[in-house]
């Protein structure tokens, strides 16, 4: 007997989570299955909608205004700008610790290399760091954390012409964390305000850290740290530091493993739980049965057994090349679960550009869909009438160049989840 639900979402990244959340809130009996850790841990935790046009114009001050002018094949055009706004409203409601909803304008948020990145939403922890805020800033890095070099980031921001004075200082993190401690180790220590040895006596870590930063502070109104300031109690950590420093405190988002990305993932799973959806992680969908043009069931591999999962409607949100929702070999690019069509040049030397940041065809690999996000075969016919796709498994857009990855995942996840729930009624 198969495990039944009305809507089954395959994939636990931003698109899958949004899709399941939308379907569950629309009243469908919803289940989400995901395999590996999602790519959110690689991401900065910034939720971008559109930073640059496909032609490279930008940074765009208003991402929503640019959507109607995107090419027809772009997923945003498939769902339309109104749906993008509705989807962002769902996100804002589900993840209350994010900011940016007060305006349509993008924020320029400093990231760990010292550039600014256009983004529509950002964690509260990054909000005091936005580059259009003209208060002077001190960036603080830690000797043993090579991912964030504060003086270099400050000089880089200065080179970008930010409207405030910015300085960087590198300090030693108080205590005796070993040199290659993970960022989560710092975060847990700060969460617990654990005792650390400083000059032969035990001190609470937040106070000891603030003391070292205070020695560097020269009247700046805000202080930026690498994104390690707590995991479960990030707001509490920032508040305590801000009180001790007499300055606003913000985090500079960084690459993997990214605490802001992990915090976002946790928040979305909490929202999904609250919406009454069920989810299970850690096992791959390896196969499916179809009858005519409908998916009848998929098979999840668990401890060597193939467990059937049946649903009325399915959402494919397995990710792109990074998440392995799109795979390739020397001859071919494919979608590995349902073998949905993925358009690509036969010659693999046409998949890339010679410049590292050139116009890469591979960045746009993914399935093409009809207006209802149902994947289409090579001849334009619908692959399966009850299968929709969302997020990076979709083709036709380069999320890295456009800075549109989160927004496309949220918008198409929302649209696919809603459409799937609608069909079950």
């Amino acid at each position, binding site marked *: 007997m198969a495990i039944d639900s009305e809507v089954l979402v395959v994939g636990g990244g931003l698109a899958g989570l949004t899709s399941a959340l939308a379907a569950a809130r629309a009243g469908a009996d919803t289940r989400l299955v995901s395999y590996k850790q999602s790519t959110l841990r*690689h991401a*900065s935790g910034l939720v971008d909608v559109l930073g640059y046009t496909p032609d490279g114009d930008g*940074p765009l001050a208003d991402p929503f205004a640019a959507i109607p002018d995107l090419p027809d094949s772009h997923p945003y055009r498939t769902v339309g700008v109104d749906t993008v706004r509705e989807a962002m409203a769902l996100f804002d409601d589900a993840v*209350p610790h994010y*900011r940016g909803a*007060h305006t349509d*304008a993008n*924020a*320029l948020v400093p990231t760990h*290399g010292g*550039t*600014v*990145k256009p983004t529509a939403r950002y964690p*509260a922890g990054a*909000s*005091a760091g*936005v*580059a*259009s*805020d003209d208060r002077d800033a001190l960036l603080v890095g830690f*000797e043993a*954390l090579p991912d964030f*070099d504060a*003086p*270099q980031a400050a*000089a880089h921001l*200065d*080179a*970008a*012409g*930010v409207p405030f004075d910015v300085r960087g200082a590198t300090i030693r993190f108080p205590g005796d964390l070993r*040199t*290659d401690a993970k960022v989560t180790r710092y975060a847990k220590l700060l969460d617990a305000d654990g005792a650390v040895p400083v000059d032969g006596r035990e001190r609470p870590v937040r106070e000891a850290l603030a003391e070292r930063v205070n020695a560097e502070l020269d009247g700046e109104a*805000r202080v930026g740290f690498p994104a390690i300031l707590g995991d479960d109690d990030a*707001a509490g950590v920032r*508040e305590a530091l*801000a009180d001790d420093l007499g*300055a*606003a*405190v*913000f985090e500079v*988002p960084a*690459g*993997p493993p990214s605490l802001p990305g992990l915090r976002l993932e946790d928040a979305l799973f909490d929202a999904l739980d609250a919406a009454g959806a069920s989810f299970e992680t850690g096992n791959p969908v390896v196969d499916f049965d179809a009858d005519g043009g409908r998916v009848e069931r998929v098979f999840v591999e668990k401890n060597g057994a193939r467990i059937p999962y049946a649903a009325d409607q399915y959402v494919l949100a397995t990710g*792109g*090349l990074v998440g392995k929702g799109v*795979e390739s*070999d*020397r001859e071919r690019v494919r979608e590995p679960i349902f073998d949905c069509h993925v358009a690509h040049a036969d010659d693999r*030397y046409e*998949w*890339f550009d*010679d*410049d590292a*940041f050139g116009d*890469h065809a*591979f960045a746009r690999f993914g399935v093409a869909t009809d207006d209802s996000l149902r994947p289409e075969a090579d001849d334009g016919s619908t692959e399966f009438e009850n299968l929709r796709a969302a997020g990076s498994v979709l083709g036709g857009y380069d*999320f*890295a160049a456009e*800075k549109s990855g989160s927004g496309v995942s949220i918008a198409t996840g929302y649209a696919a989840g809603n459409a799937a729930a609608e069909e079950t009624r």
Partner: protein
Amino acid sequence: MGSAPHIAVVGGGSTGSGVARDLAMRGFDVTLVEQGNLTHGTTGRMHGLLHSGGRYAVADQASARECIEENRVLRDIAAHCVEDTGGLFVKRPEDSEEYFQEKLAGCEACDIPAKVLSGEEARAMEPHLAGDVEKAIAVPDAAVDPFRLVVANAASAQEHGARIETHSTVTDVLVEDGEVVGIEVEHDSGPGKHVHGREGGTEEIRADHVVNAAGAWSGRIGDMAGVDVAVRPSKGVMTIMNVRQVDTVINRCRPKGDADIVVPHETTAILGTTDVEVDDPADYPEEQWEVDEMIDTLSELVPMLADARTIRSFWGVRPLYEPPDVGSDDPTDITRDFFLLDHADRDALPGMSTVVGGKLTTYRMMAESVADHVCERFGVDADCRTADVPLPGSEEFSVLRDYMDEFGLRSPIGRRSVERLGSRADDVLDTDDPNPVVCECEGVTRAELQDAIEQSGSDLNAARIRTRASMGNCQGGFCAHRMASELHGEYDEATARRAWDDLLQERWKGQRHALWGEQLSQAMLNYALHATTQNRDNDPADGDGLDFAAFDAGPAAARTDGGNRGD
């Protein structure tokens, strides 16, 4: 002798740096110039095989004898650059038995230790060898790190007073009264330590003798002096796998052909190669069929290669040379031996010699013969000591130590660092400051990178070849920005940013030939990290300035409470 004769050496590959070391040790005043980084040309683009001589034991026994002799020398003087992998010549059912016997006899004739193994014995050594490999000949092949070797030679030359100028292109050979009297070079970014973006300049380097060791570019230098050096550049591909499928050098035991060798190298295995003559050593097609042939043909020897992950491919250009009267049509027929051309005798142009041909394994012997020749020219009576004096890093040293206690490094990282640094480990790793890992794939710490930057200046590709940082699976995806950060402080932000860009582009170049499967997934991840998170493709610092006021200045709450309350 009054002041020592000044010798200008052109070329910072294994030959040029070997010549510089030898001459400096014999008391000459030496200046070495190289157009790119050390190893920029052929040396940095080879498979890393320290030949036993087995490959030449049938067709070119003179080369084979030189190889085994130098193989023994380098294990001694360059211990920290050599990994004693051993090598096998394996025979498949379709490969000729007659040739197998010739190979065995050739090894014996050339004094190369050789032992026949059954297929089972060979597979016991290398479990991933094909099941139908019938038998093999074991020889003392080894893996050598060409970067470490050349850097150590250059460092030794410097210790003996030589001046080493990288990123300095020879723009003219100065000829006065029918004699070469020096070279003119264009410094890409100022003389001395390489600094990205520093204004360069032209320098006339007067010399008592010029040694042209420019490898595939020797013909160009010859042209500048008005002499004909007919180098025949021949390209070959090398494809790098993400892991070591084999721990022994695997050669195909057949006369000649493409795709017949797998060399384990550090964390990777390198597949080689092709042999196609090209017109221009700096501009030739890098072709898909070459990569495909490596995988398809070498998987006949090691079947798992068919579906394994490759992380990049690169091409090298052999500086083949044969005397004008030989006239081989096929580049594979051209001898791998080396030639010393004395332009005084050959072209009535005193003041310059050219060394061409040869191979990395015999670089020291080539350098010795060049230095002998220069000594003879100047009546200098000094013995060659390069076969006896260990290179910096290869002095008496044990890598079997407790790095954890000594340097505070986790065991696998400490072991790898110390293997790379050899006897320099104490100098480099003994630091009071935190020494975090910067490149996780290759276990490279900050102290190693800082040491490399001190040697090579602000070129991150030069730091890369010294440390292997960014040369592992992720190809710089996770560490390129950290490496750039290591430059900052000593160098300003704009310099670090340019070096960062150059590193990203260089890493991309080789990955283009590995873009399918896992490595395409990695490439997309890297692109996302660099473009999405770091916005390096639209870096506002490189643009015309932004209208910051048009963007969100943050929620009002951020102005009053730092946005820290209420969530």
